[in-house]
């Protein structure tokens, strides 16, 4: 009896093996949860119909950027062939490119000029493009239209408006909430203040310039918002995107710095107390600086050790095509990376955010430093910024120390001062 069963089982196994699929398989790995995951799966299913000769698999990876980074680095370092197509955070491209883990895309002649220049710049390493911008995120200033009659035109005005609105009858307890916990979000906030004061983390020559007088002024301004003018609550130093959104959504803040994703959530009157009472603008500047939005977003790149780079490219081309970007914008609120789409009426109806309000933010978006050791430099800077903002050290000392450590790491990394491989 059991003998017969084994025979049958063996036959079943053998027949499965006999029907073995010989079509090439490629794997996509990235965020696969929520509306983003649904959209990607739907688009990949359509791609699959167009190309029945290929099999595309979705390999979910952690939604948390830091965790996905760890996982990708471990995979790629071991030279595994799949996933073939990787969803990268904008700050990883140069790291993976310098390591030889992803392929340069110039042989596929991508239409770089059709994308936002800042997004292309962030994905360019050693004069070659390594990833295609999939969607962009930009830092936006959310402000309350029921408390103020216009968006602030300068940082000083922002503080004045916040103070006034807080003093008013039933004024919210917080003036300005932003991401100040010790994580990558603090760097994006800081980049916007830096730009507002005419400073940056690294200059075009790749030198660390994070401790210039203007940069110190920028960090001092952030600290003063907490300690001197009390427009930002000290809690922001433990807050990420979601905590700031909750504060703003409950009507507890006059201003909020956040990414575009918050817009549709804040507009939902069943959950939000500020639905219809807010608008977005770009972060204002101080005299001598310019209004700056940090550039975020995701990119698609090809695993250098994958078996089918040409098929991987086909998938990337499909996912970043105008139609797919429009569909994604409607489903998730992510901004397309193709400039022409911003003249397309379909985008205006797809996005919750009024296009005129975000366009200037995207135009003024600046990438964070493009260097293979970005994540390590960012970690050092995060600690020093947090030390200064929590009053453990002065802004000047913190930034001098950060610059010293960052320069030492660059010197030590086998990269020359300009960030290129020696």
């Amino acid at each position: 009896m059991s003998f017969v069963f084994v025979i049958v089982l063996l036959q079943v196994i053998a027949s499965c093996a006999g029907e073995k699929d010989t079509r090439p398989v490629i794997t996509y790995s990235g965020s696969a949860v929520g509306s983003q995951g649904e959209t990607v799966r739907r688009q990949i299913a359509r791609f699959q119909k167009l190309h029945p000769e290929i099999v595309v698999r979705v390999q979910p990876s952690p939604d948390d950027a830091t965790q996905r980074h760890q996982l990708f680095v471990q995979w790629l370092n071991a030279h595994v062939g799949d996933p073939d197509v990787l969803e990268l955070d904008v700050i990883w491209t140069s790291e993976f490119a310098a390591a030889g883990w992803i392929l340069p895309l110039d042989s596929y002649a991508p239409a770089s000029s059709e994308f936002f220049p800042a997004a292309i710049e962030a994905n360019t390493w050693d004069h070659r493009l390594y990833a295609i911008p999939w969607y962009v995120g930009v830092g936006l200033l959310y402000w309350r239209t029921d408390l103020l009659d216009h968006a602030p035109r300068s940082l000083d005005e922002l503080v004045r408006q916040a103070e006034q609105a807080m003093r008013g009858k039933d004024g919210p307890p917080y003036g300005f909430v932003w991401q100040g916990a010790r994580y990558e979000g603090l760097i994006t906030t800081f980049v916007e203040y830096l730009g507002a004061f005419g400073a940056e983390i690294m200059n075009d020559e790749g030198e660390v310039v994070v401790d210039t007088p203007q940069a110190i002024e920028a960090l001092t301004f952030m600290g003063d918002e907490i300690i001197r003018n009390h427009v930002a609550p000290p809690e922001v130093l433990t807050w990420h995107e979601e905590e700031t959104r909750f504060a703003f959504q409950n009507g507890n803040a006059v201003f909020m710095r956040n990414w575009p994703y918050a817009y549709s959530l804040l507009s939902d009157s069943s959950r939000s107390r500020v639905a219809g009472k807010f608008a977005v603008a770009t972060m204002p500047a101080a005299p001598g600086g310019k209004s700056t939005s940090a550039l975020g977003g995701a990119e698609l790149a090809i695993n250098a050790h994958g078996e089918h780079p040409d098929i991987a490219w086909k998938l990337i081309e499909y996912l970043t095509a105008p139609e797919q970007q429009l569909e994604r914008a409607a489903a998730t609120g992510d901004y397309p990376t193709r400039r022409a789409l911003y003249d397309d009426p379909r985008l205006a109806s797809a996005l919750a955010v009024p296009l005129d309000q975000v366009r200037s933010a995207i135009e003024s978006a600046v990438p964070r430093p493009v260097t293979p050791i970005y994540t390590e430099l960012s970690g050092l800077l995060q600690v020093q910024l947090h030390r200064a903002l929590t009053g453990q050290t002065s802004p000047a000392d913190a930034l001098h120390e950060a610059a010293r450590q960052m320069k030492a790491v660059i010197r030590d990394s086998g990269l020359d001062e300009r960030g290129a491989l020696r």
Partner: protein
Amino acid sequence: MRRSNDSDARLARLLVAPAVGVIALVAIFPLGWTLWESLHRHDLRLPWLGQPFVGLGNYARLLHDARFWGALGHTAFFTIVSVALELVLGLIFALAMNRTYRGRGVVRVAVLVPWAIPTVVAALLWRFLFDSQAGIANALLVGSGIVDHPVVWFVHTATAWVPVILADVWKTTPFVALLLLAGLQNIDPALYEAAEVDGAGAWRQLTRITIPLLKPAILLVLIFRTLDAFRVFDLIYVLTGGGPGTSTEPIALYAFNTLLQNLRFGYGAAISVVIFAITFGLALLYIKGLGAGGAAGTEP
């Protein structure tokens, strides 16, 4: 006779071999690997550097690493304060539980509840308690008029330690109390009767009988608790993440950040080796002390 002794010994070695093999596989091999790794520059994010042998280079670098020394200091601070509090409170609980009263069994089980809760869950619980807005800690402090404004606990170094130490004390005092209770029950009640007859008060009985005879149990508690506290990771990872800045970052969290966040395997291995050396040294010290303490305990 001799022959059979020899074959006995051989059989014994043969029987012990699997256990030794397992220990070698799960303890000695990883340790050796980590040691070897710590002698190399191995940075997963800088693959173009390869994995050059750098000798003691990583250790030399540790000497000048302010964050490393800071982390060691935080670890020592956390260990001393939390273990001291746990010992005192644990002794009080143990003495209370050692008395005969109705419902003693229920109390003994109830005391164990915090110990049974997974550390990460306990840490989350304490983070909610100390949340600056909705936290119970602030509600109590403001409500009772001790402070005017809610304290933002995790933004200042001094206040960030409060939930960390409290959570650890809350969670591990039961364990300490139980170990001490076992020690208390080994003390011959006749000693107390004799002391009573001789007219010794409660305090004298505690300092002259209970504590000296509890020494082996206390040493055991110290071994377990200091070694545990020295390797503290999950509690602080969840509660403060090592912040503000890195001012509550213990050495194990620094090792984790270096290894898994920054993927600097060589340097992270060097930190891990230092942690191992310190805990191993502490363990040796305690085992010596325990031997002496055990002897003293059996003397009378």
